[in-house]
């Protein structure tokens, strides 16, 4: 009984079901990415009506960073809790209930977005949600979008309850044991998530949903925006912490070594819990209505949030080095050759980590308060997050799928060489794309823009030309799409593969320095939660109070601008007003 599916067949089914939703979202999102990259670089005029670009962009953003990532990570968390506590979920019905809630939410929000591709629907009329991932009011989506989002998030809350419940029952039976590391990681991540999602829950339930239903006439755009970023920054750690978890648990094992330090892994996750949320204002460095002092505080918190990532870099690389040395690696750098580069799960995660080192750097620039003038909302920003969520997280998830799938299905991976080519292709494609995006951003080329070419001026490339950068971006984006296609082929191929008995054991080796070396206080989740909440209160009370005091709960401004206006009407209005020269 070594594979996961043999030990927990019912849970394996839950995880597989979550993964498959995740992969379908990945396929849809990746296709949208291809359309965007070709259109906005001017390689092909994909959209005859450029407004469609924003429907595509919303689909790309929401399906990838919300659906693909979160559906995958809930699957991983079920795996982590059940294997490390060595017990199945307490109630399968309960588990499927959060699965159902999340599915309903995904379907509602997804349909609202995809409906934007068609101008008019019978009976319901115009449905769309071209508001992008950030849905800044006063741009307004169809109520179904906000409702779907809310239900989805409630689904993740219930999932968290499921895992806390497992841990609680386990604790009653094992009162003196340390929380196993994988469960510890799940619980701290979920605590962070509960705090973080309060912001978006308030924004959606108290303001945006009633407003989209016509119950409120106006909202305060700065307030809903601030509440979004209260959630919008920590959500990146909700994606990242499961990727870190893979690096802490799977990378050492696959490298043939052991985790370097269990206590430091715990410290890292605690730092994420307490520091992730009071940082969101760093996305608002250029927002009027928030004082410079609050921005400075957000920067300080954000910079200290580098610490857990920098610590992770050391611990994870050291664990890999341990594996490499056990496999006979020598020298200061020679040990790198002894790593299992032929294993797609290893190579994918190692390359993801490497690209994250680069993404970490551009993140430091983003987090710098005044240097933000240089890069804010420029193409630099998507360059950055395609390295973080788009590679550190996405490539880690894909690579770990190559390890998970055989565990979850009992079937051998369809094709290791193809899988290896897939992860390497991602690395190459992303190198081209994100490099050029960063450089294009420094020229002032904006993000989120269908056709970033203008009548009155041109962007001046100090080095190279805008055309070269666009070509690199389009080439990179195409390679990435190809990579996703290969990934899906491997997944489908594996699902159709025959059962195999040659699958390696799912047991994670003991860390070099185990939990017995770490102080007990690290496991005091109550304490860390209280500290996290206090820090959030300190960081956010005054800015929020100031925003409400200045503009009021429901204003100033914030009259609805529904994104379901017929585009032809808008165009006609503008043409008659002579507002547009083109």
């Amino acid at each position, binding site marked *: 009984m070594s594979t996961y599916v043999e030990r927990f067949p019912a849970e394996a089914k839950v995880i597989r079901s979550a993964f498959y939703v995740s992969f379908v979202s990945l396929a849809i999102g990746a296709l949208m990415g291809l359309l965007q990259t070709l259109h906005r670089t001017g390689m092909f005029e994909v959209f005859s009506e450029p407004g469609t670009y924003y429907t595509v962009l919303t689909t790309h953003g929401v399906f990838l960073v919300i659906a693909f990532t979160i559906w995958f990570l809930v699957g991983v968390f079920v795996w982590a809790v059940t294997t490390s506590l060595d017990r199945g979920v307490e109630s399968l019905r309960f588990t499927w209930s959060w699965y159902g809630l999340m599915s309903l939410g995904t379907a509602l929000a997804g349909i609202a977005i995809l409906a934007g591709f068609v101008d008019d629907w019978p009976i319901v009329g115009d449905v769309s949600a071209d508001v992008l991932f950030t849905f800044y009011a006063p741009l307004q989506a169809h109520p179904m979008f906000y409702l779907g989002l809310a239900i989805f998030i409630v689904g993740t809350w219930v999932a968290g309850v499921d895992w806390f419940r497992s841990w609680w029952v386990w604790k009653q039976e094992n009162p003196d044991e340390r929380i196993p590391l994988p469960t510890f990681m799940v619980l701290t991540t979920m605590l962070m998530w509960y705090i973080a999602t309060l912001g978006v829950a308030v924004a959606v339930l108290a303001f945006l949903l009633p407003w989209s239903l016509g119950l409120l006439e106006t909202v305060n755009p700065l307030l809903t925006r601030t509440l979004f970023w209260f959630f919008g920054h920590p959500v990146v750690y909700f994606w990242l912490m499961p990727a870190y978890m893979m690096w802490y648990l799977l990378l050492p094992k*696959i*490298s*043939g*070594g052991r985790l*370097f330090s269990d206590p430091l892994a715990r410290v890292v996750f605690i730092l994420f819990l307490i520091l992730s949320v009071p940082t969101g204002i760093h996305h608002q460095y250029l927002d009027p209505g928030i004082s410079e002092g609050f921005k400075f505080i957000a920067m300080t918190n954000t910079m200290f949030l580098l610490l857990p990532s920098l610590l992770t*870099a*050391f611990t994870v*690389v*050291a664990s890999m*080095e*341990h*594996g*490499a*040395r*056990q*496999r*006979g*690696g020598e*020298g*200061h*750098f020679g*040990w*790198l050759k002894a790593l*299992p580069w*032929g*294993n797609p799960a290893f190579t994918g995660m190692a390359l993801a980590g490497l690209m994250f*080192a680069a993404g970490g*750097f551009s993140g*430091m*620039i983003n987090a*710098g308060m*005044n*240097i933000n*003038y*240089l890069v804010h909302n420029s193409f630099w920003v998507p360059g950055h997050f395609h390295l973080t969520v788009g590679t550190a997280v996405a490539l880690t998830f894909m690579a770990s799928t190559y390890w998970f799938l055989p565990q979850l299905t009992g079937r051998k991976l369809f094709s*290791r*060489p193809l899988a290896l080519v897939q992860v390497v292709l991602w690395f190459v494609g992303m190198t081209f794309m994100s490099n050029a995006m960063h450089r294009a951003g*420094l020229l002032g080329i904006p993000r989120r823009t269908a056709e970033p070419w203008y009548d009155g001026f041109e962007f001046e490339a100090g080095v190279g030309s805008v055309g070269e950068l666009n070509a690199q971006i389009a080439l990179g984006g195409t390679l990435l799409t190809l990579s996703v296609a290969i990934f899906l082929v491997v997944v489908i191929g594996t699902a159709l593969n025959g059962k195999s008995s*040659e699958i*390696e054991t799912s047991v994670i080796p003991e860390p*070099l*320095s185990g939990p017995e070396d770490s102080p007990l206080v690290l496991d005091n989740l109550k304490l860390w939660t209280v500290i996290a909440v206090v820090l959030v209160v300190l960081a956010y009370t005054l800015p929020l109070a100031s925003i409400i005091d200045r503009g009021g709960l429901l204003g100033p401004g914030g009259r609805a601008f529904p994104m379901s206006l017929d585009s032809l009407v808008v165009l006609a209005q503008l043409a008659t007003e002579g507002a547009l020269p083109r």
Partner: protein
Amino acid sequence: MALEEPQQKRQLGHDEFDPVGTLALIGLYFLVLVAMWLFMYFVEFLGNDPTVVGTLVTGGAI
């Protein structure tokens, strides 16, 4: 390609293992970070004039 089974040649315990390779790699990373930060701030950012200044600091005099 060979089926995976770590071809372990030796066992290294906690005390026998010094992550000297990691220290070397991460030391290089540190130098790259510092150099890139200085370049981005002082060359790319401060060289991208004009920049938003405070009226208090300049006192309105030029």
